[in-house]
């Protein structure tokens, strides 16, 4: 075998090994969701069952956690997308030296461990509540409110980065032209800037919601006496003996596959459209 061919075989072997590491554990977990064994395991295979899915939908803790996750996700989207947008616009207008200090401050939540963001949020509102003699049932001690704020503090950074990337391609001449023609600032904002940013707004909403939905490290501290899907899951997994968790994983993976395939197909269709347009222009 020549050395080039050997390199090629080695490379492919490594790539195959890597993807086995990436997908193997998930596939085995998927299989365990359908195995009749009482303990979640893929082997030995003792028979096919859908019992675990049934058990999953009757689990009131999980359902309640899921609902809270949806509420928190919505709250985070409502706060972090406008904050991220505002932060990106200010970033684009700052002068050089102020910009680097500002950038360090607004990036810091991304480089801070999630547990610390959770703890600082919890402590801050708790101290504030104590200082103001607030009652126990006020928002200072409300897990859902605290989780929204804690998550917003770092998810806003993600949104900001999405908007910064898109704003770099924005041509300010459009804004100036509209202002010169007598449009108000509000009109320019809603009729020129926002439509230009629409893909970024969409991406930021999706990212903010999913990040919030997934989050554990921050939420586990800010959630106090409430629960989310991830905190309920973590509790169950630590006790660790129920295949209905695998069943939930299967559902999540299926939704992911469908979503990802949809995005991929849309991209393909768009590319074909652009290719067809180019071909038509050449034909002229």
């Amino acid at each position, binding site marked *: 075998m020549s050395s080039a061919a050997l390199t090629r075989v080695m490379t492919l072997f490594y*790539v195959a090994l*890597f993807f086995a590491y*990436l*997908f193997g*554990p*998930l596939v*085995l*977990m998927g299989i365990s969701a359908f195995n009749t064994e009482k303990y979640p*395991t*893929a*082997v030995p295979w003792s028979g096919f069952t859908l019992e675990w899915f049934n058990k999953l939908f009757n689990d009131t803790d999980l359902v309640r956690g899921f609902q809270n996750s949806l509420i928190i996700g919505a709250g985070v989207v409502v706060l972090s997308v*406008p*904050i991220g*947008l505002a*932060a990106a*616009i*200010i970033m684009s*207008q700052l*002068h050089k030296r102020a910009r680097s200090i500002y950038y360090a*401050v*607004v990036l*810091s*939540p991304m480089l*801070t*461990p999630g*547990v*610390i*963001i959770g*703890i*600082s*949020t919890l*402590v*801050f509102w*708790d*101290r504030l509540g*104590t*200082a103001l003699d607030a009652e126990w049932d006020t928002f200072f001690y409300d897990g859902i409110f605290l989780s929204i704020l804690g998550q917003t*503090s770092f998810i806003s950074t993600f949104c900001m*980065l999405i908007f910064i990337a898109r704003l770099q391609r924005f041509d300010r001449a459009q804004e100036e032209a509209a202002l010169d023609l007598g449009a108000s*600032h509000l009109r320019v*904002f809603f009729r020129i800037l926002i439509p230009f940013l629409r893909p970024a707004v969409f991406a930021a909403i999706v990212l903010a919601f999913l990040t919030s939905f*997934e989050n*554990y*490290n921050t939420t*586990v*501290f800010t959630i106090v006496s409430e629960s989310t899907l*991830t905190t309920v*899951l*973590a509790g169950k*997994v*630590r006790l*660790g003996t129920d295949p209905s*968790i695998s069943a*939930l*994983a299967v559902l*999540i993976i299926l939704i*992911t596959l469908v*979503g*990802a395939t949809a995005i*991929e197909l849309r991209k393909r269709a768009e590319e074909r459209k652009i290719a067809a347009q180019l071909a038509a222009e050449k034909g002229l």
Partner: protein
Amino acid sequence: MSRVSDFFAEFIRRNGVTISVYLFTAVIFWIAVLIILPQLYMLDFSFRFNLPPSKIGTEEDVRTLKNYQYLLFGAEGNPNAFNWLHLEVFFRTIWAAVLVTILNLVICYPIAYYMTQVASGGKARILILCLILPFWVNEILRAFAFRILFGLNGPINFALINLGIVSEPVEFIKADVALYTGLAYAYMLLMIFPLYNAIESLDHNQVDAARDLGSPWWRIHWRVVIPHAKPGIASGCTMVFMLTAGALAAPQILGGPSSLWFTQVIYQWFYTGGNWPQGAAYAFVLLTACIVFVLAMMRVFRVSLGEIAK
């Protein structure tokens, strides 16, 4: 001072009053109420005694170094010179996070390089999709998958026993094998993509030129590809280290009975220990360690914060 007021005048002229108010309110709320004040309160709280709510604000509520002393020297009357129990957990966490980061770099570099080599529209996109898919699955479920994989009755033990390699199941979870492979797996994407982006921007002619001039493959990587990928390496390593050192779910789910992660100690102070100021002090120590690491990476790789966060 006049430059600052010039800036505001220009800002309002450019954006209008309403939009300016929105921009400043949103960003000041974010920076002050969500980022800076909570950190300051946590820092202040870490210097306080653990008092019941009724005594907070009274003359008993004074500052103390007690919480930090506890991490270093343990409770009063501790027979040892230092609080080895917690210090060991702290240093083990940092050391393990460094190892996991290096392991991640070693695993991901070839894949990132391979991806840039096959980068032609469709194939590259399918590869990227395959990389991203597993990371949409919840962090906790991913750790759970490793627990199934490495369990006493799990597939690996099943295979080892049936192949006659071992006679008794191997306790992978107790030996922390599951924890380290699970942690390396958890944040892989944050290593691959910065590496991929950095390597992709390399002009491939440079690699070809080095090869034509007779450079062996390892020297091409060492002298051409890796120096070019430096910002990507710094970015990936920083993110992976920070997330690994701050991980909570994976150690809770995959950690053996004898191996605590530092975040778990913090968690205990808040939940079972009921001593929040003590937990805040420990959290601040962890935060400091992460900041030191980020600064060290910036110095070693000579990159800016902006490049790390890309």
